[in-house]
């Protein structure tokens, strides 16, 4: 069977739809979609976008697979615990559709790389799990004029919307800041790890995001442009409401690339926890499956003595000088309570941060011993 015949067979059931047809499939095969976050929303969106024949897919996530992810992130299995979500997702999805071109970014989307990465795509799917990244992705999409397919979940409810997609001259495109101009205060809105989420919910919402993306690309149906849909999985109620641009929103968004690069989204969102910190579950996932070196940065003789896992010892004072690269792609530092290891992480990230992931065990070995 020729390649074009195979393609035709693979997509025959959607080509058969008269609204979609060969023209729709051709548009999808040319489309470049970036999925930010390969968590619950991202897993679902990615699977259907890839299966449907999206030409190029970008996957960006700096997180690793943890046991508590598996109930809602079915691209991953037990053997993947401790491994990079972006890399594992890429490998699984390549099996699903080898004709899709994949760009896998095993890194965090930041003000430094966001404009360059997003600039290479036609549409962005928001599968992030925190406000700092959501506001940053929103602002970057406004700056670059890229449509953003938004999705978010909380417990049993999910939201979907299409932002930044022009319709006509009377209705300027709406973005997330037209809904909530400023991020909520830290702790005001809980995330999945705090309040929980029904596993199937991000699957439903992420799949809806894939559907909206396919509709945008192919021009079929009525995507949720300037409209916010809320779905409740407990009672199957759907509530859709119309959105409008808000005067003054544009002034809250960085006006150009240099202003964007200088914006501290963590600070705006009141994020106080360091990007270096990992909890005991993630620590255990990394140490059992990752290519990791673990370093105790306490002074010689400090107790408790750690015999539960392999590690080396380099006190904080000499970590910069004495750390020797042995080719591990992740460095995890720990101390008594997590304070010195955080300092050490900042020091090592300054030198190795581009090529390695550097983490500090939050709460230190004392907290870890309580939980293990």
């Amino acid at each position: 069977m020729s390649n074009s015949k195979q393609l035709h067979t693979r997509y025959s059931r959607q080509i058969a739809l008269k609204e979609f047809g060969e023209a729709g499939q051709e548009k999808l095969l040319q489309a470049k979609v970036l999925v930010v976050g390969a968590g619950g929303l991202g897993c679902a969106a990615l699977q259907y976008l890839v299966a449907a024949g999206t030409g190029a897919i970008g996957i960006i996530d700096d997180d690793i697979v943890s046991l508590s992810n598996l109930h809602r992130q079915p691209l991953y299995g037990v053997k993947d615990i401790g491994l990079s979500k972006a890399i594992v997702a890429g490998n699984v999805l390549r099996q699903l559709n080898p004709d899709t071109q994949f760009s896998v970014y095993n890194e965090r989307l930041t003000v430094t790389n966001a404009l360059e990465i997003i600039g290479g795509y036609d549409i962005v799917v928001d599968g992030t799990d925190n406000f700092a990244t959501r506001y940053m992705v929103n602002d970057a999409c406004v700056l670059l004029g890229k449509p953003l397919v938004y999705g978010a979940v909380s417990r049993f409810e999910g939201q979907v919307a299409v932002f930044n997609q022009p319709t006509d001259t009377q209705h300027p495109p709406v973005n997330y800041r037209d809904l909530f101009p400023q991020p909520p205060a830290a702790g005001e809105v809980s995330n999945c790890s705090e309040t929980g989420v029904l596993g199937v919910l991000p699957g439903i919402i992420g799949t809806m995001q894939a559907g909206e993306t396919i509709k945008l690309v192919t021009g079929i149906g009525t995507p949720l442009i300037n409209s916010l849909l809320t779905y409740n999985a407990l009672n199957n109620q759907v509530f859709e409401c119309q959105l409008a641009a808000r005067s003054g929103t544009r002034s809250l968004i960085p006006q150009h690339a240099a202003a964007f690069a200088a914006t501290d989204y963590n600070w705006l969102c009141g994020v106080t926890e360091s990007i270096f910190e990992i909890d005991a579950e993630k620590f255990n996932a990394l140490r059992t499956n990752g290519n990791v070196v673990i370093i105790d940065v306490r002074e010689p003789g400090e107790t408790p003595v750690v015999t539960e896992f392999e590690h080396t010892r380099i006190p904080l004072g000499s970590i910069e000088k004495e750390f020797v690269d042995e080719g591990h792609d992740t460095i995890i530092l720990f101390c008594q309570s997590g304070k010195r290891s955080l300092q050490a992480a900042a020091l090592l990230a300054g030198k190795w941060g581009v090529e390695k992931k550097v983490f500090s065990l939050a709460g230190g070995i004392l907290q870890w011993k309580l939980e293990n």
Partner: protein
Amino acid sequence: MEVILFGQLTDITGSNTIVVDNIADTDSLVETINRLYPAMAGVKYLIAVNKKVVQHNTAITEAGTVALLPPFSGG
């Protein structure tokens, strides 16, 4: 009239619908809700009147639908 609530707002009110009477517009709705549920004063939400998100004080009729929608962050 009945007000529909979403997400964590229901933790404050204890229910996903509340009933308020003699409400002429969204400003008096917010005032009444803040009096009945003081914790609502400190949280962000959108107000949708007849399925349109409103940004300024908007008249509400007894037959209208009003919904309060908070931001979600999970993914």
